[in-house]
């Protein structure tokens, strides 16, 4: 192939790829420190309706072939250090229930236990829920309405707006 033709083909390929990639922003784009697999962690996004000041932010995570839905939220933590440390814990195999607009419910699970980070009277947790291909497919197609997160204390409920649901789909499409 002539160099000029190859160069122009490369430019065309770059330009066509640009619009799709431009929307995907990653906080982490690296390799796994132990396995060497590719790790992609999209930027955190607020998907849910902010009700009573509670905010849930989410991210799509991909480690090699595995996909995860990552969520981050906080809860008031008081008492002594041990009480604050245990204020927000999601156990291994902890459930995440997602309700869609067709009233169907999807269940995701954690692979390990997650404990909140305590700072300034709050405990903030980052939990990862594993997604298989069919789960990811459902999340990309159906409109999500609500999320219920099972923790060792009370359940946490969050409602999604129309925009938030679309934002979540765009984010998950990146992984």
């Amino acid at each position, binding site marked *: 192939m002539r160099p000029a033709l190859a160069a122009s083909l490369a430019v065309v390929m770059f330009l066509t790829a640009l619009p799709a990639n431009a929307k995907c922003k990653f906080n*982490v784009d690296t390799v796994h*420190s*132990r396995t060497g697999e590719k790790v992609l962690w999209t930027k*955190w996004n607020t998907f849910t309706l902010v009700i009573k000041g509670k905010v849930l932010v989410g991210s799509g995570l991909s480690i090699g072939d595995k996909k995860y839905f990552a969520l981050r939220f906080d809860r008031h933590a008081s008492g002594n250090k041990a009480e604050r440390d245990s204020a927000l814990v999601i156990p291994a195999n902890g459930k995440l229930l997602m309700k869609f607009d067709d009233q169907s419910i999807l269940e995701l699970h954690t692979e390990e236990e997650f404990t909140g980070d305590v700072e300034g009277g709050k405990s903030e947790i980052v939990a990862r829920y594993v997604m298989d291909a069919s789960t990811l497919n459902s999340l990309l197609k159906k409109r999500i309405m609500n999320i219920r997160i099972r923790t060792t204390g009370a359940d946490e409920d969050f409602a999604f707006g129309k925009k938030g649901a679309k934002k979540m789909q765009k984010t998950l499409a990146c992984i």
Partner: protein
Amino acid sequence: MNASHWRLGRTNRKRIKLAILAASLLPGVALAQESTCEYAPESINPVSNEKITTTKWQRIKQGDGSGISFTRGSVRGISEGEEKYVGIKIDYLRYRPIPPELGIRLEDTNMITRKGIYDRRLNAVVERLKKVPFTLPGGSKLRITLEDRTTITVMADEEYSVLPAVTKPQHPPNNAEDFLLKYRVMPRYLLDTDAIALLSNNLVVSLRMEFPHQYYYFGHRNLIWDDRVISKKTMATVQGVLKCVL
């Protein structure tokens, strides 16, 4: 062959000069990178008789962007025989209120006497507070988060007990400022082979130090969608000191 083939144009001559200059600078650059390892004077462990190599403290600071809330400290790498450690220096602050006896009965005397009495009592409190130790228990955890967001947890190798530097209230006796107790805590955390392998090849993006009643974080988020990470400069500082001993 025409002689003109060997004649170099002015541009080419410049390029060659630049290449020679760059080549001559390369070893210097490499040396400069190595010389970024600054070590404190070596010492010997009196018990094991092993040589202790320690890098100089390098400051790490991470704010939340507001200019109000930040964690400030220093980090160093330590090598003692076969064992490797990461050392963190942080000022642990505690506040103690002015004891009631400092304010009572002072109104009964004249100004000069009041000042004398007040100062004597103040100094007595300072001397008392200087003897109040803070102890970081052995086994206290340091959580290190790597770039891929996996974590390593290492533990303080022993108990660290320190006495404070005490700062008096600034404008006695009428304001409510407290005594400030500043404990300079310098624990070192033992790195196992797994931690050494991981830290040799990966950047550290955040640190969480466990204290008896709270945690100290190096790595803040200033906006809700940001990750909890230290600055690129701090990442390089941490990696720099560790590479000098690993």
